[in-house]
């Protein structure tokens, strides 16, 4: 497990890495590495047993510089630059929460770069009658200290030890508080203004994401309702399955680390990447 910071055309990007083998890019969410945790979590380490996991921190988060403007198009371009810089022509892509939205956009816009796609509780879609939860409102504590409604948005069991560990009442660990703030700030750049964590055009564009794909959802996800998972599953032309996890909320990677990592491993095993050795010119050298 390592952490490095690279200079990407004048701005710093923090990257957490683990494992060896085929590159697997992981784009994080709120209750996740970089969103609240400073380092990779058990879920990521398990995922890295069979791949080289590369987890960049979104702009403004956990040591990465902010970018401005910072809407979805800017983020996509930011990541294309990062992949070019890291000589990653083609890779497996896993995204959770807001990272899932970015992953879905990347897969629809640049399908040639994504070998296999996994979305976990991904926002990004407009689903009538099933709005994404208002994480900004829920992040405002009640009585100055009570974070129960934020925990209830993110976890199946808001009173459980795990939820209390990462989103405690009152003033918690300063570094974690600051990371949560930075993640919210990134989220507000990307997804506060309408469209609210979605991009209406995405659904109609997802047919282009023709790579094998897997959709994983917590049955009790109150941030991004499970109906969004069903729409992703329908809209992705070669989605192999929609895995709905019982007793799991939005923070699936924290709540079910082994199960989610194993589902991704099995999915990759079932869909070997036939284009893995195809030469690819990222085009930046010309």
């Amino acid at each position, binding site marked *: 497990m390592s952490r490095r910071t690279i200079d990407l055309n004048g701005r710093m990007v923090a990257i957490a890495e683990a494992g060896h083998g085929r590159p697997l890019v992981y784009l994080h969410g709120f209750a996740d590495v970089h969103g609240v945790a400073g380092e990779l979590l058990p879920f990521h380490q398990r995922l890295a047993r069979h791949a080289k996991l590369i987890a960049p921190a979104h702009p*403004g988060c956990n040591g990465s510089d902010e970018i*401005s*403007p*910072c809407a979805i198009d800017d983020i996509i371009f930011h990541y294309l630059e990062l992949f070019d810089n890291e000589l990653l022509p083609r890779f497996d892509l896993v995204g959770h929460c807001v990272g899932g939205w970015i992953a879905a956009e990347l897969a629809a816009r640049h399908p040639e770069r994504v070998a296999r796609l996994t979305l976990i509780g991904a926002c990004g879609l407009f689903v009538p009658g099933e709005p994404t939860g208002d994480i*900004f*409102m829920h*992040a*405002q*504590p*009640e*009585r*100055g*200290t009570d974070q129960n409604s934020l925990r209830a948005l993110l976890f199946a069991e808001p009173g459980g030890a795990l939820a209390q560990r990462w989103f405690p009442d*009152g*003033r918690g660990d*300063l570094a974690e*508080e*600051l990371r*949560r*703030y*930075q993640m*919210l*700030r990134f*989220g*507000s*750049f990307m997804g*506060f*203004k*309408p469209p*609210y964590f979605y991009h209406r055009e995405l659904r109609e564009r997802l047919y282009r994401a023709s790579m094998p794909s897997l959709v994983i959802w917590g049955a009790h996800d109150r941030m991004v309702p499970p109906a969004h998972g069903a729409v992703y599953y329908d809209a992705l032309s070669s989605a192999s399955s929609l895995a709905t996890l019982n007793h799991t909320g939005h923070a699936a990677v924290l709540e079910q680390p082994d199960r989610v990592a194993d589902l991704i491993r099995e999915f990759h095993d079932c869909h070997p990447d036939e284009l893995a050795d195809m030469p690819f010119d990222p085009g930046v050298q010309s």
Partner: protein
Amino acid sequence: MSDPVQIYCWHFMSYPHLPANFDEKYDTGWVTVPNSLWDKDKSRGLYQQYIDQLVYADELGFDGMVLNEHHQNIYGLMPSPNLIAAALTQRTKRGKIVILGNLLPLHLNPLRVAEEYAMLDNMSDGRLIAGFAPGSGPETFNYNVPSAGTRSQFWEAVDFIHRAWTQPGPFTHEGRHYPMRYVNPWPQPTQTPHPPIWIPGSRSRDTLVEIAKRGYCYFLSSRSHGKETARSQQLFARILEEHGDRYKPARMGILMSAYVAETDAQAQAEAKEGVWYFLKNCLKGHLRREGRQLTFGPGIPYIAPEEFENFLKFSDPTSPLLGDAENWDDLQQSASIVVGSAETVYRRIMAILDNSKVGNLLIQFHLGNMRDELTRKSMRLFANEVAPRLRQDSARLFAREFPGVARAAEMSK
């Protein structure tokens, strides 16, 4: 002699007809407070009563009337302060009309604000003080404006309006947020070069720097006035010096609330209902720990991560806010709502002036559901028995503290 402190009457226009059990039943007075509580019958004539109170302030000799913009709450029923200001231009004769301010990121286009403010300056024959504010936590929810991004938008809008008032049009504005091919507002403001510009700020050094760079006035957006108020004044003075300027009292203003009656005991008895309605209902969701407070929360105000780190280090999420006051002693401590006889109110406000040396006092008289006749009586007693002494003593204080400023004023005569 220096200019005395300028004393303004600020009206928030709160909603006064909430049910008696509001605090038990509802967790906030902001953003999500159900508007089914609006009583159409009881609310007839409400704006008229509030406008009449401001007209009365003008008649009593206050230096001006202050309005501001709020949305979807019971604390302030002025989504458009410009409408009230338009009414005041026709019903008042002397006082300044301070709009503090239009929330620029919520407006589609700053040209509209430049136009409306210029209209108001003409309609009032040059009595407008133009305030611009970025909006705070609740407003970002109200208009879905991502506050983290509003800072650059806000200053671009401010500079745009300043330019629209001072540079001959038509011209082209090449801004990131408001690119405009033809900027040429008719009318132009009456005042030259433009109406005074006031900008509210609280915790952000960056905001003070931007105000100092442009030569504007700083309004401290805090309701409590302990040591922090003096510290803010000192910080602003230092920043002004860094920018080759010098602090003088006219450059800064503060907000407080007051109720004056014949004796301390009578003042407390008369103010009690309105003050506690204000603290427990109007501040719920804003300056009260109970319920969900939207004003300072994470990711909501437009403060940079470095500043938020300091905020985390030096603030305590369990410390009581103004609305958590439980009795008159708590309230006394906050130096926010001053209630008492003319003598008491004079002494307490003069102590704040001694300490903070600000030249603009923006005073809220109507609190919560305070009755019209009590509000007017308190305003009258303040105007007749408190304001003259504050003016006299503050002029002496400022002359002593800022002798250079006094000389400059005399030289210009």
